[in-house]
């Protein structure tokens, strides 16, 4: 996709505002606080081979919220290519929901018939960027909705890298024409664990490509900051979000709380705070 065309597609995406990663424990509260949650992100993988109960849940959610499918396992960085069966199921789901965009990660989750079970970093190299571009092109053959790619946390550096992480992200975005789902928690965690300046990292990214943000809090384990989606968003991450919203025409932000689920009032407080930040930078009403 030509850069100018990609930029226009991303610029024209609707501003969705502030939303929540849908998890079953939120279901009842979500409908009671419909006016404070602008949209939902659903984990696509939960609905690919879903029983009828799950699909009815999806229909109910879709009647009340804009839903963004977020996939975990397309393995876009796999040098072996993407799993066609998985891609077909994902395409069916995305077509069913007809979302403004959908997302997956800059990572590989399987190789050589082995399912790793988690998002694994690839080499920051030209070859790896080409692989992702090829896999994104395969996904586009079946899915028309714009794809945005998420940065992951990584505990290890794969040898053979030729560029920095920020330069690699930029190269991937340029080659694929995709938007960026910038997980500001992941950015903060990587900056702490790998000792770099997140502001400097942010300056190297193409701001006009940042479409959506993820945020949440992690926890410390054996001297490493872990992306466990288990704690309130810390002040350092709010600072990254503030700076990102200042620099980039972000269309929506999603709170991703998976573990140690707090009372919904705490979730709403975080959403309200994100909403205020977006308003301050005139990203949404």
């Amino acid at each position, binding site marked *: 996709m030509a850069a100018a065309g990609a930029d226009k597609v991303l610029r024209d995406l609707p501003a969705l505002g502030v939303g929540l990663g849908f998890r079953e424990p939120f279901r009842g509260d979500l409908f009671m606080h419909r006016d404070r949650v602008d949209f939902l992100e659903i984990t696509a993988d939960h609905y690919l*081979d879903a*029983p*009828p*109960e799950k699909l009815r849940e999806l229909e109910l959610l879709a009647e009340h919220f804009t839903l963004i499918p977020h996939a975990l396992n397309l393995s876009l960085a*796999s*040098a*072996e290519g993407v799993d066609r069966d998985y891609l077909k199921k994902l395409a069916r789901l995305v077509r069913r929901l007809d979302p403004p965009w959908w997302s997956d990660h800059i990572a*590989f989750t*399987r*190789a*050589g*018939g*082995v*399912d*790793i*079970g*988690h998002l*694994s970093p*690839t*080499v920051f*190299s030209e*070859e*790896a960027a080409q*692989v992702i571009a090829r896999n994104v092109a395969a996904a586009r053959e079946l899915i028309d909705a714009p794809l945005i790619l998420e940065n992951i946390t990584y*505990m*290890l*550096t*794969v*040898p*053979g890298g030729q560029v920095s992480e920020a330069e690699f992200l930029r190269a991937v975005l340029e080659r694929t024409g995709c938007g960026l789902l910038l997980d500001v928690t992941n950015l903060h965690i990587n900056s702490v664990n790998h000792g770099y300046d997140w502001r400097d990292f942010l300056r190297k990214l193409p701001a006009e490509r940042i479409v959506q943000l993820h945020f949440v809090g992690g926890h410390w384990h*054996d001297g*490493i900051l*872990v992306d466990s989606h288990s704690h309130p968003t810390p002040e350092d991450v709010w600072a990254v979000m503030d700076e990102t919203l200042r620099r980039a025409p972000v269309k929506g932000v999603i709170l991703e709380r998976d*573990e140690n689920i707090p009372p919904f009032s705490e979730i709403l407080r975080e959403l309200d705070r994100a909403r205020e930040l977006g308003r301050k930078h005139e990203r949404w009403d």
Partner: protein
Amino acid sequence: MGLVEVQRTLARIYTDAELRERFFGDPLNVGREIGLSAEESSNLAQMSAAQIKTFADSLYGKRLLGVGKLLAMTRRTLGARFDAHFRRFAAAPVQGGTPQYLDDAMKFATYLENSLCEERVGSGWTLDLLRYEKARLKAADPKRRVVAAYFRHDISRLVRSVARKEEPPTVVKRATVALWVRSKPHGPVRYSAFSAPSLFGRGK
């Protein structure tokens, strides 16, 4: 070494604890075993063994979390014993890497059922709770029409009580058969339980 080979080797090293330990102990020889040249082995061995172990541990933690959610009542009831059993279960290498949660939970439930039977501790209601969660997981398969399970306790009351976090839970010894039935594949599941009259009165 091309990216395909790098990723294949990494996937094996991440998910196979025994191979990982051997590789970092003797990269050249173990690398040769898995088809790497001396240079390729040397490149991969530059990776921090500690970082890879941390990543592998996170895979284990994620797996435990996923299985624990699918067997939530059993995990809550057994506490640290659940985690200890899972650690032993997960130590065995798995063909194909990290299993899908549902498959993993089903296999672990069978393993745990056998282990609890061997241990012969407690009153047996924990075992019923585990069997209930295992049967419910089986019934989640939309292609299955009928799943039946036998329990030594009034399973519906027990499940309600544990779900409400009652301490101690309401445990009534009463032979019970539970059924999960779909009228057609991919149709909604209906659950019914049929109990014999109380045989042993109210137990703990």
